[in-house]
């Protein structure tokens, strides 16, 4: 059990790489940076493969339990004396481990995150070769791998949150990698702050769980969820907890209404878009919801919310993607839309299907982004598809690999996307209730749109007429080997990854879902029991054995949708030359304008929530509140303080006046003045001359003498 016992090394490897780069990177040669950073991720990949292999062997003998290892107590004193009361009045210790957990769910993420991560690291060697801040880029990338692996391997919600915020930070750093550009740092801030909004929901959701279960470990939470019956009160709190967790997922996985940061995140270097904003980080929300499946199935309201938000996001983002001209933006909206599919799957209880789509999506979407990067590289940095065209022969490897990825995402068999997307649509269709049929229609229309915008991208880029300037055309070249090899490997995966989930209806055995059974099966069984259909559990499984004709019909329909999308794109763009016309614009200019401007959501948010734009000179939102508070602080609160000071000074002045003129003036000096006035006549005699005194004395004496003599 060499690998499994040392599983904690996996996240630490890239952590060392990242820390090393940030401390000493400036002095290192590019080759050293490559060896360290790519090497660390490569080692992590090898260890991940080893661990997963050993885990599958270990699980056979341990009734498919998750493997858990606790390194140390991270939060809390580990004495059990720092307690808080839970919902039933019991005590629970405040505690969060630095502990890791490996089960089939984390195994899948572990494999594709390290695998795709390694390929993208290799690709970056070529892509970033001429960029400044090389070590910084790889340092951040390694740091991201550390955070993502922490997120995946955490054994409790708080540690998951560590990875969750960590990937958010790395995303911020990498979106803002070209920090000289204001648009890049704006996008970075937007990503971080929007994610924080989601995170605040996540934190509160976590507290609800801790309050309900008295622990934040996944095994304890699952045990709690599977425990007998829950009172309606408890179920209400579980609904609140899961909805709040889903707010977090909406932030991280770019769902309505918090998706706005992801398209802007394309300001980052393309490998970042591929790794973080397509393959790995944005699926963290899916991971978290899947991880909490035991709680979610107890909260039908939350499940419905997840499904509806997912479906709406899917079609909303796809419709924007139809008209975008920036090659990376098309892919960004496509990612948002595909994430919507994943949440749709989770919301209808098809957890395995959702995870399967995450898995296949990781390959073909990473491939699409890396392919786009290769195109941009060839086009000397041009990202606008209006200035591309006819690159098919000039960069053939990029063309072929991107074509495979496009076929995969459009859902054309036997490419990977077909299996996962079809499974999601089928599961949506079979969910009880008419509302799910509407969701299926939404999903179906989205599939058509997906095929359209993806083939639009392919036709505008690789076919049609060349529309670039002569100079750019002159420089077109196929990318270096380090970029091509990852493309080819990902293309192979996009072709074959779907076979893991070959459905039973087509004679397969759906290995993928079977592998995940230990994580989800109990949850799915519970859903049925909750709805009072325990008896149907067996029946439902039996039904799966026989496939209904409907399933084949839906399969054909979804392939047809992809075909229609492809055909429409071909008709409109196959021969596009300079100044080609957009079919949507021709049909309805107003719709085109709304879509091109992304439904004006960013503007609306700026008016209402951030306050970066004013409405008729009035600022609303956070900045509006900030301005109002600042005014209030300076004038009212501090005004009161200064007012108190003023009152003191004024009363002091008044009393000083009173003291000077009334007390001292009238009271003390008054009698003195009076005395002086009254003494004036007497003072007239006081001349200070001795002769005068002598004269007066003499006159007085003479007077007295006369008086006595004549009396």
């Amino acid at each position, binding site marked *: 059990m060499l690998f499994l016992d040392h599983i904690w090394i996996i996240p630490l490897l890239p952590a060392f790489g990242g820390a090393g780069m*940030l401390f000493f990177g*400036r002095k290192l040669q590019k080759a050293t940076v490559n060896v360290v950073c790519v090497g660390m991720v490569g080692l992590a990949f090898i260890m991940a493969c080893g661990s997963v292999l050993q885990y599958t062997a270990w699980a056979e003998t341990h009734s498919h339990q998750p493997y858990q290892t606790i390194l*140390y*107590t*991270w*939060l*809390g*004193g*580990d*004495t059990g*004396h*720092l*307690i*808080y*009361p*839970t919902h039933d*009045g*019991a*005590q629970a210790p*405040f505690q969060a481990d630095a502990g890791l957990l490996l089960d089939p769910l984390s195994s899948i993420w572990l494999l594709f995150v390290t695998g795709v991560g390694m390929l993208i690291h290799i690709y970056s060697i070529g892509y970033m070769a001429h960029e400044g801040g090389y070590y910084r880029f790889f340092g951040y990338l390694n740091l991201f791998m550390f955070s993502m692996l922490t997120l995946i391997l955490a054994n409790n919600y*708080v540690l998951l*949150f*560590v990875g969750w*915020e*960590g990937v958010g*930070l790395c995303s*911020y750093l990498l979106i*803002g990698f070209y*920090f*000289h550009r*204001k648009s890049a*740092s*704006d996008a*970075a*801030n937007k990503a*971080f*702050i929007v994610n*924080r*909004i989601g*995170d*605040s929901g996540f*934190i*509160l959701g976590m*507290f*609800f769980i*801790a*309050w309900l279960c008295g622990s934040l470990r996944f095994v304890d939470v699952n045990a709690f969820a599977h425990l007998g019956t829950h009172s309606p009160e408890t179920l209400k709190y579980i609904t609140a907890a899961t909805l709040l967790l889903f707010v977090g997922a909406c932030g991280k996985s770019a769902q309505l209404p918090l998706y706005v940061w992801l398209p802007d995140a394309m300001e980052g270097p393309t490998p970042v878009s591929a790794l973080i904003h397509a393959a790995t980080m944005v699926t963290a929300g899916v991971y978290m919801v899947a991880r909490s499946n035991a709680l979610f199935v107890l909260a039908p309201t939350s499940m419905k919310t997840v499904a509806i938000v997912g479906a709406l996001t899917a079609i909303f983002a796809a419709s924007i993607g139809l008209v975008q001209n920036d090659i990376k933006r098309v892919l960004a909206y496509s990612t948002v839309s595909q994430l919507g599919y994943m949440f749709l799957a989770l919301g209808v209880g098809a957890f395995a299907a959702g995870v399967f789509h995450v898995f296949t999506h990781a390959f073909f979407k990473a491939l699409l982004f890396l392919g786009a990067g290769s195109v941009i590289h060839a086009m000397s940095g041009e990202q606008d598809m209006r200035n591309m065209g006819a690159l098919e022969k000039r960069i053939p490897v990029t063309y072929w690999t991107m074509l495979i990825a496009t076929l995969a995402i459009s859902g054309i068999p036997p490419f990977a996307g077909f299996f996962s997307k079809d499974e999601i649509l089928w599961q949506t269709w079979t969910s009880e209730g008419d509302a799910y049929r509407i969701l299926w229609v939404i999903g179906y229309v989205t599939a058509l749109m997906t095929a359209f915008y993806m083939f639009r991208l392919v036709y505008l880029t690789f076919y049609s007429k060349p529309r670039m300037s002569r100079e750019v055309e002159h420089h077109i070249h196929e990318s270096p080997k380090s970029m091509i090899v990852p493309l080819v490997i990902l293309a192979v995966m996009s072709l074959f990854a779907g076979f893991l989930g070959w459905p039973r209806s087509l004679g397969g055995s759906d290995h993928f879902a079977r592998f995940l059974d230990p994580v989800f099966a109990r949850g799915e069984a519970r859903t049925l029991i909750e709805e009072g259909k325990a008896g149907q559990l067996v029946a439902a499984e039996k039904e799966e054995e026989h496939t209904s004709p409907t399933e084949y019909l839906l399969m054909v329909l979804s392939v047809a949708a992809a075909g229609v999308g492809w055909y429409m794109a071909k008709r409109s763009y196959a021969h596009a030359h300079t100044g080609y016309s957009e079919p949507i614009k021709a049909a309805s200019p107003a719709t085109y304008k709304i879509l091109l401007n992304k439904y004006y959501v960013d503007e609306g948010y700026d008016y209402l929530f951030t306050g970066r734009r004013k409405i008729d000179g009035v600022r609303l939102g*956070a*900045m509006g*509140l*900030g*301005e109002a*508070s*600042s005014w209030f*602080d300076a004038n009212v*609160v*501090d005004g*009161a*303080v200064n007012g108190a*000071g003023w009152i003191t000074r004024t009363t002091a002045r008044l009393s000083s006046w009173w003291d000077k003129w009334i007390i001292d003036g009238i009271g003390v000096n008054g009698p003195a003045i009076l005395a002086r006035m009254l003494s004036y006549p007497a003072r007239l005699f006081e001349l200070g001359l001795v002769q005068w005194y002598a004269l007066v004395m003499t006159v007085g004496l003479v007077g007295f003498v006369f008086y006595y003599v004549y009396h």
Partner: protein
Amino acid sequence: MYSHILSIVLFTPLAGAILLLFVPKENKDAIRWIANIFAFGGFLISLPLVPWFWNLRFEPGFKFVEGSANNWIPSIGAGYVLGIDGISFLLIMLTTLLGWISILSSWTAIENRVKEYYVWFLVLQTGMLGVFMALDFFLFFVFWEAMLVPMYLLIGIWGGPRKLYAAIKFFLYTLAGSVLMLLGILFLYFHHHGATGVYTFSIPELYKTAPQIYYDYGASAATLLFLSFFFAFAIKVPMFPFHTWLPDAHVEAPTAGSVILAGVLLKMGTYGFIRFSLPFFPDVLMHTRVRFWVMALSVIAILYGALVSLMQKDMKKLVAYSSVSHLGFCTLGIFALSPLGLSGSVLQQINHGVSTGALFLIVGILYERRHTREIAEYGGISSVMPVYATITMIMFLSSMGLPLLNGFVGEFSILQGTFMEKEIAGHPGWFWAAWAVPGVILAAAYLLWLYQRVFFGTVTNPKNEKLHDLTPREIATFAPLLIMAFWIGLYPKPFFQILEQPVNQLVQNIRPDYGKPAGTMNASVQPRTAAPARQDLAKTGGIPSLLRGKN
């Protein structure tokens, strides 16, 4: 050594100040060296406390107690008594560390009246340490007031353009609160005499009698008494709406003054709440209306401080208002009156000292180079000063509570401690936690926006093109703070263990039923009953009739 460690730690800075008096003032470098040696020595000398305290961390009561009650001025019952528990231990370590860092950071920043500056700084250091160590109210009040003077002078002499306004405002505002507290102390003092026949300022003794005031004089009298302490501490923290002295004092104070002001002085308010308000007035605090207002003011401080911070144009003012927001979290944790909230609060006080102390150093470094703190004057600094930019980013992240750095641990504990309460002032705990959480979002907004405007983009101002990166001395001031930030973020277990005993003790005193299973609650509640002869006591006790309650 062991038995006098607290006195030694307390008076080391003062000894340095006295020594400095004998150094000629022209000899600036000698003065700097001596001050730094004593500041660093003060930190080193406090280090043995760590292992010694660690061994005693689960023991109840105060540790390293020195002196006995009434030994100083026996006739009035004042004593020189020092002693610490887990809460004051952490704050003392923070004080000695930040004292050293701020004195080190002043080396080039202070050029005029160097001697006076360091003398006052060292005196201030002793004053602050005394506040955290004193176990006698008389002694406490002496230190509490004594530390005002040096801070007043530091702002008033070495401050910015509006230094006199700021210094006087700081002094008078704080003094106004202190006067009310003095009245409160005297009430406790005479009440103690009335109850026991002994005049004493000893804090452990007053713990025994003060809670009875609620029953001896009625709720309204006890509430007034609570308020007299509350104003003193709320001004110091500062809580909304008593906070406006803080931005002015910070903006005008020299960098080191700001570091100490934010890092340590503000903690005296929260420390006062924990050390005095909670154990003295448990029944007042559990009163719905009082609790509602203290909680509401905390939440308002969190949101309001963050919103005002968002719109500041002066970096130091921005950081000052962010302090209001962060201290709001601290008071929220205190008034949640749960062990978790309290531990989180103390931890967050340490965190705030580390992160905001660092933020003021960061602003100070740019100020020293450019002599302006206007955000608009900067831009693109990360290309010119990359090491500085990296350290700033780490400290910003720590301040906004990113996990694996210190801020998260404190905020998370506070929020969870608040959340888990079934009922606080008529609302469930989650209600209060939910109001506080947006503060975390806003923290990211104002800090990242500040970072963007100062560090990102291209250098547009030619004056910024030639700024030199951090010197080794400046890196040395940041190093301990960075280590603390990562330590608390990665391995906070020792801190929780140190805080465990005092916070559980506090909560036990206030809420004897805390943590007991719901069923046994009624049986186990032992309400603090009225003292047997409370009517007589009020009539015959040695309390001046002016202070006497209505009954």
